[in-house]
């Protein structure tokens, strides 16, 4: 798994709540998959209260990234193999 920072994430929403991040993905990304809290993507965990979503847009992933001091960001990065791993999950 790669390092998120090295992927130079595009920030779509900054310093929001995890609920706002959830709604942003649900409303703005056509393909999104529900994941459990703690789901690891690249070198970060998806943090929050279910439901938590990760979106797929072309070759990119869009997901919430929570930092203890700065709230939750919605970031967009090249998805690579993580897209296939996400789509292969049950209950998507």
């Amino acid at each position, binding site marked *: 798994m790669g390092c998120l920072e090295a992927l130079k994430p595009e920030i779509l929403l900054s310093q929001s709540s995890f609920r706002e991040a959830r709604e942003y993905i649900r409303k703005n990304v056509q393909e999104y998959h529900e994941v459990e809290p703690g789901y690891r993507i690249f070198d970060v965990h998806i943090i929050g*209260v279910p439901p938590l979503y990760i979106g797929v847009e072309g070759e990119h992933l869009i997901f919430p990234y929570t930092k203890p001091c700065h709230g939750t960001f919605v970031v967009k990065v090249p998805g690579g193999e993580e897209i296939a791993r996400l789509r292969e999950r049950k209950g998507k």
Partner: protein
Amino acid sequence: MTENSNENALILLGCPQVPVQTSMALYLVHSLKQRGIRPVIAGTPAARKLMEVADPDRHYLPEMADIDAAIDEITEKRRDFDLCFVFIHNDSGVAYAGTMAYISKARVYALIFGEHAEDLAAEIEFPCEVVAAKAVHNPMPLKRKLDEVMQWAVSKR
């Protein structure tokens, strides 16, 4: 007073922006040790450094862990805890507590403090024990609430 126990507790620190956190975390370590419960502290580098600098000889501090490494261990089922205390003074804290309630088998305690303690407490919608007090600089309101909870938390063991 030390009880015989193999129990352990994860203390999950939030952003160290609010002064009472470091003080209350050390107090919680003390309370747990008194009851024979082995604490582990996880937090951001800054939150951990605040504690490590204040206790260079590690008289009080127990095992320390990176917050992401701790979550890794739990999600990968390499480790878990009996109790988990999450310090919360912002939305991220609520998010971390919700994550712990989901990934860990521990009994989760949400220790909510800061200017917006009541509002944050109202946002808790997952299984946990809420300990909330409007405490920013003075730890005593939160300490009193924590003392009450520790009494019956231990009696449930």
